[in-house]
């Protein structure tokens, strides 16, 4: 999975592409832990994100929990296949998703 970051003040945009599987989730969490200090608005651009494993869901859940304390987190341009997973697991309620 590739992550492209773009910081604009306290707004951090992360463009995710590829598969967020168990292995990728470890790196994804590391990346998030290193990037989120002082960020008040976190935006995931999921246009290129093709697959999210349960580990990835967990990662999103963790970052959502953290961002609930210091600002907000939004997922944008989520593909249908990913959305299906989110819906099936009910995560669409837990995560803020913009179409």
């Amino acid at each position, binding site marked *: 999975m590739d992550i492209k970051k773009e910081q604009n003040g306290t707004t951090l945009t992360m463009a995710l592409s590829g598969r967020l*599987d168990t292995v990728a989730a470890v790196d994804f969490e590391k990346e998030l832990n290193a990037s989120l200090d002082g960020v008040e608005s976190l935006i995931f651009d999921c246009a290129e994100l093709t697959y999210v494993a349960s580990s990835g*869901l967990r990662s999103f859940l963790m970052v959502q929990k953290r961002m609930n304390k210091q600002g907000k987190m939004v997922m944008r341009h989520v593909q249908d296949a990913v959305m299906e997973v989110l819906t*099936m697991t*009910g995560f669409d*309620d837990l995560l803020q998703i913009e179409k």
Partner: protein
Amino acid sequence: MKLDIRRRMLLLALSGSILSFLALGLIIFFGVMSARDTVAERGRLLGASASNFVESFAEDQARRRLSAHVGEKARHIERELEHTRRDAEEIAQTMKLILAEKEKYLPRALPDPHTETVASGEPYLNMSRAVAAGGVDEEMRRTMGISGNIVDSLSPRSRFYTGVFVGSKDGWLIAADVTPDGGPAKFSEKFLDSYDPREMNWYKLAAAAGKTVFTELYTDTNGNRCITCATPFYDEGGFAGVVGVDCNAEEIYQQTADLEAFGKTSVKFVLSKNGEILFSTQKEGPLAVTDVPRDLRTSEEQSLALEASAMAAGKNDVSLVTIGGQQVYLAYAPMESLGWSFGSVISQEEVTYPARYARDNIQGQMKEFSEDFRSLLQQLTGVGVALLLLALVAIVSLSVKASSHFVRPILSLTEGVNDIAQGNLDRKLDLRTGDEIERLAECVNAMTGNLKTHIENLARVTADKERIKAELSVAQRIQAGMLPSVSPDFSGQTAFDLDAGMNPAKEVGGDFYDFYMLDENRLAVTVADVSGKGVPAALFMVVAKTMLQNSALAAKEGENLADVVARANDAISKNNDQMMFVTVFFGVLDLRTGVFDYVNAGHNPPLATSGGGPFAYLAVAGKPDKPLGVMEGLSFRQQSLTLAAGDALFFYTDGVTEAADEKAELYGEERLKAVLNREAAAMPSMKELIAAVRQDISAYVGEAEQSDDITMMGLRYLSAETK
């Protein structure tokens, strides 16, 4: 093959040394050659300049000697003539005294040569007939008699004297003649009769001069070449006559000439003030005395004529003149009293002989020196070449030793490294060369040490891995043991057919299934999938399974399943900092009625077949429930369906549909439904069905690595059963 280090070092040392030696040798060789040339040139110049100096010095000395020689000769003759002058003047003085005091003397009779025999040297008195005829008065006679007393003074005082005489103004002559043979004097009558001193040249010269004079050279009656010293004497009446002394000039000259022979080729001569050669040791030639007088100043030899003029003019010199085509030295010195000049001629050859001798000697010595020097240089060169060869031999042997010495540590190093390469990591290289090789050895030691540590670490890590692997293997068995098995619990069971299996992607997995009887009529089934894989998932799976089972077993009959799941969720969500969660399909089948109540907490729906129809997914009514562990206080929905005998349900986790082949293509729901429907027609047991699906997945995946846990469970309701 390339040269090894030892040979290369040897080559380097040798070539360096030899080049240095060659350069040094060339420098020395050219230095020596240059020194030789310089010495030869300097020697030649020195020889030339020294010989020139000696030549000119010798020539100068010769000229000085020549000059001194002729001066001495001239002075010698002058001295002799000076004696003669004094003798003559003394006689004149005596005559004056006698004549001044005539009364003190008695007349003295002297022999008359006309009549008497006169011995050699014996004084006599002569008067010519003309004088006698003129009359001899008393006074004259008396004067003659008194004058006879002079005879005591007339004895010849020198052997050069041939006659001493007194000529009176009255015409008489008192004389003492020395005969050549010592016998009696022989006078011719005519001579005695005609001889009048007053007519004589010497008399006239002295009378005219009034002082002592020397006559020109003349030949006397005896054939002697003579000069006469004449001086006037006086009485009270004035001029009274002339005293004369005849000198054999030839004798004087001969004596002087014999005094010291100067050179073999020398010619000595006396030149008159008229340029006439008076005496000469040369009998024939330009310097010989000739019968007919000639003037040397007009000689055809021009350089000789020039010097003759200087001689006649009374000068003193040494000159180089040409006589008969030969270069000769002419030295001359004046005899002032006579106006003569004494000359001496000596060949240039003889004069410069010492100079040439000296020059030749010096040149010979220089040549000798040069040859000695050359041979010395040759010897030195020979010795140098020999030393060079010796040094080369020494260098070669030293270089061989030195290169061996240098290479020894390298060989030792190589041997040590080979030993280490063979696996002897305890080997320590001990090289104390103090240079790069020692540092290299230290590096090798350090490397060996690191290698050893690394290998030990590797061994330990490997051991750790093995241990972990073993532990995981145990954990796998434990996990497997936590999952229930159909037999022996449900052996003999007729109300339903149940089978399940879980294949973890790693040793332990996050999926699990579970089934147990809540009471004799109700069967609870669970299929769950924990987020993530491996040990964390396995641990969380234990928690989830335990909590869910606890909650289910704690439920009262008739309690809504949603509450059971919600209770389990609250327990799981507590202290779940890692945000682990688990999707759960939890259902309870009432064996009596076939009613199947279930809660789907975020899990994928199962496939169901009813009335022999194809398998189809259970439709999800409304919004699905969330997985357990996400947060506390979630609520769930219980759903329900009723199974007829023979109806079946197939539960699974997404490891099935998301199993990927080598091209990362997913297995998918359609393939799953296809294999299920294909198998379903034969009404297989659940065990067979699951095996068939596993087989199909395995065939599809091929060699691709299993990426997720695969869990399947099949449940067929057979018949209502009452106990």
